[in-house]
């Protein structure tokens, strides 16, 4: 009986993995295709990768995306960590719970709603200051920082709550001033949370399409938007190459993320 369920379980799992990874493997595989065809494999080559890097639009979009992802995740981590420290310092329990719920709502809200409402807000503010083309890099950055913030707070907060309140006191006791003590002994304890927040933010920002679509202007295109506009025409295999690169990047980040997680968990267990 037990064996049977485990066999079924394994088959289910295999199917799940197949459905999850088949498209990715397909793309990886065909990105090395030597022909123009999207269904016939005509031998191994890296020509699509070469073509990819000759396409001006794509390179610019990639650069934009990276700048945006790095900036927005770093800003989100700084703001989010500061916010977590502030929330954590609140004595009143109900206030803290309230703040946390408010922080979490944007994560639950459908992206399209967030995207449209942000666009409307930006345009509205733009009109107030008599600017017609507000949408561009600054609005995109604001939008990305905004949707990254909850993830940072969510990953830093639990770490912060675990920190023994006596740690900063011990440092002060040994002669360190309070602010310095905080950075010297509390911050190292929450670094895993900060790293997690940073990686999550970067990933979220890197592959965000919907919110970026609404809050960006013609002057600043991100990679997902560039790809989307290309697929409206004809999909060229260099798109496969691009997707493959993106996938590999995200995959590496996820591995790093899991590594960070596993390490901090192992440390907690001891």
């Amino acid at each position, binding site marked *: 009986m037990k064996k049977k369920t485990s066999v079924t379980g394994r088959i289910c799992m295999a199917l799940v993995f197949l459905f999850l990874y088949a498209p990715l493997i397909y793309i990886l595989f065909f990105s090395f295709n030597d022909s123009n065809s999207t269904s016939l494999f005509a031998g191994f080559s890296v020509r699509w990768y070469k073509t990819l890097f000759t396409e001006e639009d794509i390179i610019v979009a990639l650069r934009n995306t990276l700048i945006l992802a790095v900036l927005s995740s770093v800003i989100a981590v700084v703001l989010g960590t500061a916010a977590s420290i502030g929330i954590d310092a609140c004595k009143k329990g109900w206030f803290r719970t309230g703040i946390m719920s408010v922080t979490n709502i944007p994560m639950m809200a459908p992206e399209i709603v967030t995207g449209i409402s942000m666009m409307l807000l930006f345009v509205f503010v733009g009109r107030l200051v008599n600017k017609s083309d507000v949408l561009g890099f600054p609005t995109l950055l604001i939008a990305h920082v905004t949707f990254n913030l909850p993830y940072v707070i969510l990953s830093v907060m639990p770490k912060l709550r675990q920190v*023994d309140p*006596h*740690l900063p*006191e*011990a*440092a*002060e*006791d*040994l*002669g*360190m*001033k*309070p602010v310095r*003590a905080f950075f010297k*002994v509390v911050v*190292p*304890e929450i*670094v895993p949370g900060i790293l997690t927040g940073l990686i999550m933010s970067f990933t979220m920002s890197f592959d965000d399409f919907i919110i970026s679509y609404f809050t960006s202007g013609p002057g600043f295109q991100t990679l997902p938007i560039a790809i989307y506009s290309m697929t409206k025409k004809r999909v060229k295999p260099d798109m496969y190459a691009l997707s493959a690169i993106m996938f590999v990047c995200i995959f590496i980040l996820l591995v790093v993320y899991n590594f960070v997680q596993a390490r901090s968990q192992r*440390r907690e267990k*001891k």
Partner: protein
Amino acid sequence: MEKNVIIDLRNVSKSFDGETILDNINLSIRDGEFVTLLGPSGCGKTTTLRLIGGFLQPDSGDIVFQGKVINDVPPYKRQVNTIFQRYALFSHLNVYENVAFGLRVRKCPEKEIKKTVDEMLEMVNLKGFGKRRTESLSGGQQQRVAIARALAVKPKVLLLDEPLGALDLKLRKDMQTELKKIQQELGITFIYVTHDQEEALSMSDTIVVMDSGKIQQMGRSEDIYNEPKNAFVADFIGESNILDGMMRSDFYVDFSGKRFKCVDKGFAPNEAVDVVVRPEDVDFVPVEEGMLTGEVTLVTFKGVHYETIVDIGGFKWMVQTTDYHPVGSKVGLKIEPDEIHIMPKSEYSGLYGDYSSFSEEFDELSEPEEDEEDE
């Protein structure tokens, strides 16, 4: 006032959320003394320590260090260091860096740091542990690191908040001896907090017994044990039979319906008093010779002695002797005059000292509350 007083609490009061936690505490601690704050959980021991460490400010009264009021001096400027209840080691630093922490803050030269850290690690028997992660150490070893870290900066006073609370019994005993040794070697003042009376008795020069935010009694271990000031102290330190009595005149006291000779004087004639008789000070004698007679209701073998509960006119006495008397047998009790200790009535009168509800479970209460034993 005595000379070489290092820390002085003057009329210190502290309340949290309108609840008085420390009520007008006056406490003088001499330089080089091993002082123990002893009292049940919640009586304000930690609060007192945090006031001295600078982590709390008194609502009223003064904290005086070497003659200077230090109420507003922040912890990082006080020459006082703390061993926190749960060690509070810096887990991102190794053992060496933990011990070196305070020296680095003081910007000591590297050579001097190394010398001091090595010295400290040697003193707490952790030579060669410098490179280890603090998490890889056992509870007892972490405790030693905390001690080395605090002592490395050469404080004038070390505050220890139930430092051995999380260790198992055997290790606790060893650490008690070791701490006492370190204190004597360095000659610095230790202010030690515990709720374990045995620990307090065996380690301290001076014991400060606290309850509900007040100092109940302060003195040498022997004095506190032999001359408790009130029923609370008598009951909290060791075992006591505490009876209602009446001083007839100097050297004569009535209790349990009999008149006894005693060594106390200075009470008003016919003043109501509390009478303390320690269980080990009572002897069994044949019924006809007994000053008091009663029936044995419970006998427990304790290794060195039998602990016998004797019912005398409804009051249950505890007697510790090497004589065995089975449950149900009639016994006589003999008490020498100098074994009777008389205390004035207090708010604690009648609350303690009768063993009628006594059972083995009560012993558990004196065990440490936390059982995170990791060795």
